[in-house]
């Protein structure tokens, strides 16, 4: 789900070849799960079809594909929108949260904007679940608790990230 947008974000930073994009993706986001080369090229193909990237002429050099990919205005708009959209609260959200923060730093945007928006969205959902837990049946209450604890984990992660943003910025931009 995040792969096309992460690739677009990397292309917003600078135009690139497919091979270099895969290398950058694996460096920043693919820890323990590198992106298959085939997925990189098929994703770039779809992004080109949808007008989010433009494909340059093939360039001489080593490797199978030396086409340079350049993000379009439409692609930039999509990255911009995605980076400011809160994600609906759900388990295993951490990868998306993490990707957004690191990408924002790479693009020299302030990730606090996103973290604040996400925090507010999570708190709003937590308020709804708390009210349900307070006024509902035991079954409602236990179901709400499940959601509340997952949201709480994300919120703690958000707070921790805000507190360590200077160190993360230095590490990502080094």
């Amino acid at each position: 789900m995040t792969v096309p947008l992460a690739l677009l974000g990397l292309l917003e930073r600078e135009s690139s070849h497919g091979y270099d994009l895969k290398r950058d993706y694996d460096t920043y986001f693919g820890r323990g799960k590198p992106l298959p080369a085939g997925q990189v090229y098929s994703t770039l193909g779809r992004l080109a079809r949808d007008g989010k990237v433009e494909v340059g002429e093939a360039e001489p050099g080593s490797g199978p594909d030396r086409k340079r990919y350049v993000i379009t205005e439409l692609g930039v708009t999509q990255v911009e929108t995605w980076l400011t959209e809160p994600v609906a609260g759900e388990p295993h959200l951490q990868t998306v949260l993490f990707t957004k923060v690191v990408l924002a730093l790479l693009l020299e945007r302030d990730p606090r904007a996103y973290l604040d928006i996400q925090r507010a969205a999570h708190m709003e959902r937590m308020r709804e679940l708390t009210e349900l837990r307070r006024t509902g049946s035991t079954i409602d209450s236990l179901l709400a608790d499940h959601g509340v604890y997952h949201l709480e984990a994300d919120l703690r992660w958000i707070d921790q990230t805000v507190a360590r943003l200077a160190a993360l910025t230095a590490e990502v931009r080094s």
Partner: protein
Amino acid sequence: MSSDEGFLVEARNAVLSFGQTPALQGANLSARAGEILAVTGPSGSGKSTLLHCLAGILVPDSGEIWFDGRRVDTQREPERSALRRDHFGFVFQFGQLVPELTAEENVALPLLLAKSRRASALAEARPWFGRLGLDGLEGRRSGELSGGQAQRVALARALVSRPKVLFADEPTGSLDSLTGEHVMDLLVASVREEGTTVVLVTHEPRVAAYANREVIVRDGKVTPLFVERLTS
């Protein structure tokens, strides 16, 4: 200039240092009548200091504190003391019950300090035991109560004089999560019934979620959230 209409308590650009250590560095915060406002932030960020300034316990070095159209920070201690006694209730992390008194006498204490007669103060205190699930514990001293029971007695004591504002500083901080939730459920039900404004300091997101609104204190300032800037 009076406090903005609709705000019951307000801090304007409050600055306070303890020696060389800055605690508040221009904090702005306001709560409307009947609102439950959560004040969150990391340890040492200044959120408890801000609560103490709003409650007239501490006076900021500069800036203004307002309550119900009245300037608080310029009042002398006896006036602020009367303000706290007549209009504010307090719940802290540890109940701070008077150990020599029974639970019932602890709840009646604010009324006794406000010169109520003992019999009428105890009569006003008693219904709170039923409301907060404390029936049968009226005669116990704090050492004979569990943490959750003691905190509910402290809550009853904070609300018995029907304050306009309840200041709660980590009210569930010493309790396990289930007991803490029970105390918060009772707190919210009670203040909604009474229409009490609540300023709730907590570092727990689950406690903050009981509030209508949340503000975050970082480095002695109330952080303007990006989301508020985007929607304002």
